[in-house]
């Protein structure tokens, strides 16, 4: 740092210290934020300037806190950065009053520092958002793959949405664990909610079925709609000897039959049907 720059910097520090009350008052008006918060940030800024500009850890912590608090209150990240930039305007009035070349030169340096800090609040806002999105994606992964019991010894996995490697992994683990826990001998994988079955999805499904078979369970894939059947045939995917059904109801009926359970409609219903036919 040249001597000139150093002098300029010190002059700004002096101005900040001498006119603290006035600058803070102006800043609060411009930023429309609570005076307490801004005072704390102002003090932290002063003390970090004293210790040399490389030590901004405290200040950054406070700014991250400000960014979080303002995001909770519904301010946009641009609003928050603008509030920080407001300090430049507040200081400029004092610098103008001083009028000296040192103060002017120092103001340029200070303004660059504030720009960095303003951008930092923006950055901490996006970082926080990204963390939330990541958490939600993980939660969604867990939520969207339930294994439900349809009958004694029959479990089903209704799949909804995109089936990628990560999700298939979760589905497979859950399915296999449920097979162990319930001792079920039949599993139905329902793909009614899967919009498109490409080779990757098919491969994942085949693996899940083979894994379930290795554990002694019989697997049925249901929810094959006409357009999906068409696509699978055209793509040339072979499902081999895996039983597939058009609907979950068909798959349940099949699994019940396989486990030797007969479903008989009560007599009353039969009579009703007969009268209708007459």
């Amino acid at each position, binding site marked *: 740092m040249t001597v000139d720059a150093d002098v300029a910097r010190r002059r700004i520090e002096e101005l900040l210290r001498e006119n603290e009350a006035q600058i803070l008052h102006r800043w609060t008006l411009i930023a429309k934020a609570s005076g307490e918060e801004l005072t704390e940030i102002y003090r932290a800024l002063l003390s970090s300037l004293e210790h040399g500009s490389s030590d901004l850890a405290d200040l950054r912590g406070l700014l991250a806190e400000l960014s979080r608090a303002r995001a909770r209150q519904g301010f946009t990240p641009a609003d928050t950065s603008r509030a920080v930039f407001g300090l430049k305007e507040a200081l400029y009035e004092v610098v103008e009053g001083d009028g000296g070349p040192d103060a002017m030169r120092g103001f340029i340096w200070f303004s660059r520092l504030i720009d960095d800090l303003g951008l930092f609040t923006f950055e901490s806002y996006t970082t926080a958002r990204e963390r939330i999105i990541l958490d939600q994606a993980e939660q969604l992964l867990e939520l969207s793959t339930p294994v439900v019991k349809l009958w004694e010894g029959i479990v089903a996995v209704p799949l909804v949405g*995109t089936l*990628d490697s990560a999700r298939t992994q979760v589905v497979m683990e859950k399915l296999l664990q449920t097979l162990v826990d319930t001792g079920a001998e039949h599993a139905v994988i329902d793909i009614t909610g899967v*919009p*498109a*079955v*490409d*080779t*990757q999805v*098919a*491969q994942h499904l085949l693996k899940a079925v083979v894994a379930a078979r290795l554990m002694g369970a019989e697997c049925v894939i249901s929810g094959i709609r*006409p*357009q*999906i059947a*068409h*696509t699978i045939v*055209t*793509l*040339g*995917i072979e499902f081999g000897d895996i039983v597939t059904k058009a609907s979950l109801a068909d798959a349940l009926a099949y699994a019940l039959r396989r486990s030797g359970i007969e479903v008989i409609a009560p007599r009353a219903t039969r009579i009703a049907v007969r009268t209708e036919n007459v």
Partner: protein
Amino acid sequence: MTADWELPIAGNADVVMVRQRVRSVAVEVGLSLIDQTKVVTAASELARNALVYAGGGLAKIEVVQNGARQGLRITFSDEGPGIPDIEQALTDGWTTGSGLGLGLSGSRRLVDEFDLISAPGKGTTVTVTKWAR
């Protein structure tokens, strides 16, 4: 509508994006449900190929006219290693990766027009077209 869409393919989420965009354009063009599903599946295969074998690429979706017929054309381009033997790559069951080896050959069957340009070191461009009936 004759607007074009250009979508980058850089991750799995982008493959989903391409799929969704193709589906909405296919609906607009008036493709039947079966044809929609076919072209969406082909787009999914080709976008994933670009991602897996070339590390990413670009998908361009456009609406094309042929007389009274409307169609959907998608161009996938990447700057990956390219395909040395195109005929072999288009054979059912052939794969250099860990898939089923049906993506490229299957996609060709799913669409009406299929055009593949590739050379080792020069990347790959696949253009597919599906016409409304």
